């Protein structure tokens, strides 16, 4: 190899010279992160971001299965207008638990803490996240939060809905509420620490050559997410703390009986919980950008539009929380402003969708399972988005607020968006994580079940919501019976889809075909390591000379095995944000 130099931003001030060595990239892994340390104890005490990511993935899958099982129970109860098989109080506790678990234990940590933990350092060419021990700590904080929440079940449980609105939540004499608030409080810190870790990692641990304009869009999305986590989650922590004090001590800030204001609680709660929906969905956007380029074999269309729209969503997302409160009795001024700002947050989301579709134009499109999920994502998430516009419109929201329309809307966004993106990412990176391929035909069948099951479950909910069916109802009036029954049938199909996924993923672990380092021929840096990756991700600090979506460059140029030569200006360019460098290679 003679001189390999990058042309990006050649006008920048002083290009940095790096002595670069070339290695023969390993094709077959020797010492992978899975074989490096073995045994349960090594896993539980590991500070390796990949293992922690997998532990998160396992936990998230566990809670998803549990909360999903609750959802099936709820849907079954709603088969008939009156009691089907459980009591009203049980039903109320189950839907609360379903919501709280799905939000706090599944959606919030799913993509950032599970997939993000695994992929982010690899996409940056780093050996680990900035604070590996903190990373492990945040996993255990998450586990403790979960334990506290389960302890609440042993203490009468809680039936407040996941929103914990006062004064219902502060007046209910159930020890369960105190336990669950404690659990959510603790859980918040897990989220905050993950966010802190990611921001620092992205700023300080990028490999030479990864300038801000070569950052994978997944990293941009995780960056935006981390910012929201750090800015919003502490407000949830203080809100939940105040709520617990309200319940234990009656301090009176939120309880009208003591002179407080229940609507103020809603402001505090939604100041976190609205941005939190972007904590859940924005990392999904990142995955979609990665998958859609790989399977179109084409440069992303509108790199900066997609990267910056993530940041725009993160910012505007903080200004719109009051659209959950249009009927709450907040002032007319606030309502008007919140409604107006709500529409602004729809625009960057639309921009992303248009850019993704434009990326497909004249691509080389391969409909592998991850790509199939991207298509499902765009289909479902668009419906979620358009119905969001409906709910942002003031007069219409008055009619639709707190009905099944809202339930359907946020399931389309959260499940049709986040979870489908998670599935896309899981299938996409599964070979990297495990070194095994899954059964492609079965995967497509499962995707079909999920797509059909999902729509059968939630489309009827739009109709019955608009017809007036309120949410969180144990009994309902007869006219809604057909919609509920269709929805229940859909939920069974959906569950079946997930069972198939569980089966073939487990199967692939033991019997799956070996995956090469780069089964999709992706240009992403994470694919230039072995599958599964080396204990330190890359055997040497990689040097990056092309962007992650430079599909017009021959793939050989991504597999040169360029690495920093030791003792020759060995230094990350992380702090050097100008993004210009010239790499000089010497053959090894």
């Amino acid at each position, binding site marked *: 190899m003679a001189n390999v130099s990058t042309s990006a931003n050649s006008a920048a001030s002083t290009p940095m010279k790096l002595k670069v060595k070339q290695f023969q990239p390993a094709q077959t892994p020797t010492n992978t992160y899975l074989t490096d340390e073995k045994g349960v104890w090594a896993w539980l005490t590991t500070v390796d971001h990949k293992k922690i990511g997998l532990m998160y993935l396992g936990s998230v899958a566990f809670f998803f299965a549990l909360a999903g099982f609750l959802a099936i129970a709820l849907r079954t109860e709603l088969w008939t207008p009156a009691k089907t098989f459980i009591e009203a109080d049980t039903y109320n506790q189950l839907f609360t638990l379903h919501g709280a678990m799905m939000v706090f234990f599944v959606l919030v940590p799913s993509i950032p803490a599970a997939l993000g933990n695994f992929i982010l350092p690899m996409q940056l060419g780093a050996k680990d996240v900035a604070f590996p021990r903190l990373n492990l700590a945040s996993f255990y904080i998450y586990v403790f939060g979960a334990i506290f929440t389960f302890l609440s079940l042993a203490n009468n449980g809680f039936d407040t809905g996941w929103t914990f609105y006062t004064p219902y939540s502060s007046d209910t004499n159930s020890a369960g509420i105190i336990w669950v608030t404690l659990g959510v409080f603790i859980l918040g810190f897990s989220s905050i620490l993950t966010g802190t870790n990611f921001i620092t990692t992205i700023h300080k641990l990028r490999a030479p050559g990864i300038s801000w304009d070569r950052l994978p869009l997944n990293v941009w999305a995780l960056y935006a997410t981390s910012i929201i986590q750090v800015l919003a989650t502490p407000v949830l922590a203080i809100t939940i703390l105040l709520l617990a004090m309200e319940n234990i001590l009656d301090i009176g800030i939120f309880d009208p009986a003591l002179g407080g204001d229940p609507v103020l609680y809603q402001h505090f709660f939604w100041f976190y919980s609205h941005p939190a929906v972007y904590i859940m969905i924005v990392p999904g956007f990142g995955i979609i950008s990665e998958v859609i380029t790989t399977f179109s074999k084409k440069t992303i269309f509108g790199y900066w539009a997609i990267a910056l729209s993530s940041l725009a969503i993160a910012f505007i997302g903080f200004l719109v929380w009051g659209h959950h409160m249009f009927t709450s009795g907040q002032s007319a001024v606030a309502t008007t402003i919140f409604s107006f700002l709500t529409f602004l947050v729809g625009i960057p989301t639309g921009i992303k969708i248009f850019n993704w*579709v434009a990326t497909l134009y004249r691509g080389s499109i391969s409909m592998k399972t991850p790509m199939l999920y991207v298509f499902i994502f765009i289909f479902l998430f668009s419906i979620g988005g358009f119905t969001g516009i409906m709910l942002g419109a003031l*007069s219409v929201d008055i009619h639709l607020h707190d009905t099944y329309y809202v339930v359907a809307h946020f399931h389309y966004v959260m499940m049709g968006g986040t979870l489908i993106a998670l599935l896309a990412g899981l299938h996409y990176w599964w070979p990297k994580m495990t070194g095994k391929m899954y059964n492609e035909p079965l995967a497509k069948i499962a995707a079909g079940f999920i797509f059909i099951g999902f729509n059968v479950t939630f489309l009827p909910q739009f109709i019955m919501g608009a017809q007036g069916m309120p949410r969180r109802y144990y009994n309902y009036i007869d006219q809604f019976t057909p919609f509920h029954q269709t929805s229940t049938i859909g939920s069974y199909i959906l569950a079946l889809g997930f069972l198939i996924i569980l089966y073939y993923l487990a199967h692939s672990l033991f019997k799956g075909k070996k995956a090469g380092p780069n089964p999709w021929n992706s240009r992403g840096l994470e694919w230039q390591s072995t599958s599964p990756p080396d204990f330190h991700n890359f055997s040497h600090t990689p040097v990056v000379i092309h962007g992650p979506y430079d599909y017009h460059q021959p793939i050989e140029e991504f597999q040169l095995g360029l690495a920093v030569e030791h003792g020759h200006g060995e230094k990350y360019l992380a702090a050097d944000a100008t993004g210009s460098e010239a790499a000089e290679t010497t053959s090894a």
Partner: protein
Amino acid sequence: MGRLFDFMLPENKSPLTADSTDGLFHFINEASLVLFLGVVLAMIYFAIRYKRKSEDDKTPVITHNNTLEITWSVIPLLITFVVFGWGYSGWLNLKTVPDDAYEIHVTGFKWNWSVNYENGAQTINEIHVPKGTPIKLVMQSRDVLHSFFVPEYRVKHDVLPNRYTYVWFQAEEAGESQVFCTEYCGTSHSNMLAKVIVHEPDDFKTWLDENGGTPSGSPVEQGEKLVSLQGCQTCHSVDGSDLIGPSFKGIWGRDRNLADGSSVTVDENYIRESILYPGEKIAEGYQNVMTPYEGRISDEEITNIIEYLKTID
């Protein structure tokens, strides 16, 4: 009429409050459908048209196109401005109560709607209104948050314990409309239903006159009426079936086991205490969920209720 998404909305029985909402609902649905089909069909078309032929396919380098970016940012932005303006004007209409509106007071409490009229008439879970007149409901809650929702009028507002909120509507036909509570409020949230009953103006006048004035009848009759108006039967049955609280049937004079292990005889003082301060002595096997009636009910009314309870065997 005859719009594509008509099947989604319930009948419109209060055009003055519902028309603007419905128009916007249809507009957003139809505009969304066009955009949605555009996106999805383009996506599917590309997937077929540019299907991968071989692993060596070359793709063009199309990094961005500012004209396109601006187009697909500005056009949706303009559409959303229209939606905002339309929604805002409709909402202003919902907030602006006509000056000549007829006022009725509604109180939400776990899990009933109590309704008071100008002449002292009182109903429970039924709101009687004349047709063709704007009606203003002044609402408050006695305990937790509730929300008053009539789908057929497209009106909804939360009902709060510490201040008054209101909705207005004008029903144009005699008949009934369903009322839901849409803010989660505990065990029987889904049973906190009511009906708006729309009368011809003359019928309403007659109804109001018949039900107004001071309560009359024997203590037992008055007690029975009170028990029904206060919604006691939502939680306490009179036929012995077990609801959220103990049944009234055969309660009088019986010994009752309490949650703390002691027992008490059901007499005047126990019933009085249980109405005013329900948290003091909880019956075994039941939760402390009843709202205290201290300050809301007179001694005479309690006496009447006691007389009535004596009669339920």
